[in-house]
Every structure is written in C-alpha cells, then in structure tokens.
C-alpha cells in the first residue's frame, strides 16, 4: 500500500478507535478520556503497519507498536494483570525483538536489502 493511502488509513483507524471507545464504559479508565483511544489506536495501527509494509524494519516497528498498544490496554484495563503484562511485554520485546534484529541483520547480509518481498521462495 502506498504512503498516502497508508496515512489516510491510519487516520481512519485512529478516528474509529476514538469513536468506539466512547461507547465502551469501563470504570478503570473513566478518569482519563484519551487513554483507551490511544491504546486501541496503537494496537490497530501496529497491526496495519505489519500488514501493509514490506520493509522488515517497518514490520518490526509495527510489532513494537502492537506490543505498546497491548501494554497500554493491559495497564489501563486491569489492576490484577499489571505485573503479568509487564513481564509478558518484557519477554516479548526484549527477547522477541532481539531475535528479530539478528534475523534482520542476516537478511541484510544475505539479500543486500531488508525488503520482505524478496522472501518469497516458501509458499503454502
């Protein structure tokens, strides 16, 4: 997807997240009106970035955005699960992103680019 279309889609997703969050009545987040829209926006735009981009670095950034969205959702939603979310995100971001970075470096060395459209030899 092109950059302009991506920008408009991202804006649309943010607006949709803001509209949806108005209809959800969650007591834990009644104090800060922007917290939930921000969490949902991060989540969906992260997913969108993962699906719409071919550059491996952009995909990793999309994954980190998705994780940030989950972290924000978890810490705002639930008081019980805060430490669990902290640990989960620590494992995901620290280990997962480290492994992704190693693979990225190897993709760059092998294919001389980080474009994932080059990775098309394996198909179902």
């Amino acid at each position, binding site marked *: 997807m092109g950059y302009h279309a991506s920008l408009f889609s991202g804006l649309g997703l943010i607006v949709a997240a803001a509209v949806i969050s108005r209809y959800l009545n*969650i007591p834990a987040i009644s104090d800060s009106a922007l917290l939930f829209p921000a969490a949902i926006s991060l*989540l969906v735009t992260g*997913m969108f970035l*993962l699906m719409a981009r071919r550059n*491996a670095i952009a*995909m990793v950034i999309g*994954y980190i955005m*998705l*994780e940030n969205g*989950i972290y924000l*959702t*978890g810490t705002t*939603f*639930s*008081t*019980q*699960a805060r430490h*669990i*979310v902290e*640990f*989960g*995100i620590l*494992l*995901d971001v620290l*280990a*997962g992103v480290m*492994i*992704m970075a190693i*693979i990225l470096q*190897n*993709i760059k060395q*092998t*294919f001389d680019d980080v474009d*994932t459209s080059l*990775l*098309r*030899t*394996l198909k179902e």
Partner: protein
Amino acid sequence: MVELVFITPFVTGLLAFVLPKALSRQLLVFTGAVHLVLSLLLWKTALRPFLPNILPCPGRTAVSSGDLAAVFLIAIYTTGYLAAHQLKSENVFTGFMLLFLSTMTMVTLSDHIMVLWIAIEATTLASAPLIFTHRSGASLEATWKYVLICSVGIAMALLGSLFLTLSMELGGVTAALSFPPCRLWPVTWIRHGSKRDSFLSWWDTAPRWGWPHAYLAARCPQRSAQPGLGPVVRGPVELRLFRHL
C-alpha cells in the same frame, strides 16, 4: 519437585552454550536421559509440585511429558548427526535444543494461564534459532516468517488473557488464573462475554509450530522434533482450553 522436569534442561541448555562441543553433545544425551527418568517419575506421581497453584496435579499431563521424553531420544540421533556434520555454531544449536525441550515441557505442565503464555512464547523464541542454523536464504525466510507469525499470535494471546482478567474483575471473581479455579468462570462468562473471545483469540492465533516450511528449512534433528512435538505440546493445551468453552 515437578519443576525439576523443565528446570533441568533449562540449566543444562544454558551450560551447553559455554561448554566445549564434545561435552555439550554428551550433555544433550545426559539431559535426555534425566528428563526421561523425571517424566517417568511424574507418570508414577512420585513428584509433587513446588508451586501447586501454577503446576497441575501430576498425572493429568504426565502422558504428554512422557511423550516428550520418548521423542527426546532424538538426542541420541542428534549427537551422531552433530558428529557427522561439523556445524559452525554447534553450541548454540545444542543449547537451544535443550531450551526448546525445557520450554515445551513447561507448556505441558503449566496450569496457570499466564505461565502457559510465557512458556508458549519462550518455546517460540527457543525454536527460532534452531530453524536458522542452515544459514541459507530459505532458512532465513522460514525463520523470519515463523518468528513474525508466532510473535503476533502470541501477542494476541496476551491481549486475550488481559480480557480474561478484565472479565474476572468485572464479574467479581477472585480465583487464581489457573485452570482448576476456572470452573467458576462460566458464571463470569455468562455475565461478560469476553471470556469466550479471550479463549478464541488463544485458539485462533496459537503459534504455528507445525508450519511445514519452518521445519523443512531446519536441520535434521529439529526437522524431526518440531512436527512431532508440536502436536504433543499443543494437544493438551488445546484440550484444556476447549474443556472450558
């Protein structure tokens, strides 16, 4: 102590990274044998959990742990394979193979939903470097796709678990997040439909450990271990989840 079944391969896996090649091969077989003995003890319910809220009563999942031990006789084959093929990073391969065994055993034994999540995530992370040991273009592609699919899947599972805790909070359920107290959850489930969604997000986005290209691109021992062990590990987890749907 039930925890020894997965702590032993974890510790030996870390040791394998720093030991000489020949010694790490012997360690692989030794750990396989210890794991087999511990799994048999678990089967005989001779071991008791140190953390009973997190690990289930032995016996319920001991069969899959026993299967894991039987399949880990692959370790014996692996030593011969490693001797025949001089791998550049043999220590890394052996270390991750043992960590893979440890995390998979943890998946079969954990009864706390978040411990289960951590074990599944750790299994994905431990198996990714094993796919990449060929260092070819195809193995690189397989690893990239495997890590990305599994990471996004497991991130969705974390979100599902959060909705689960939220539904418990809203429903006023104070039970632990482990499977036995979950029998109280249908009440919460009826009041707040998010429990079903949480479990479905677990189910739908479970890591694709059986993705054929991932293990076809890997080395022979991993190629034999992954498709065989994946269903063994996933089976009891999925059965446990389905029982509550």
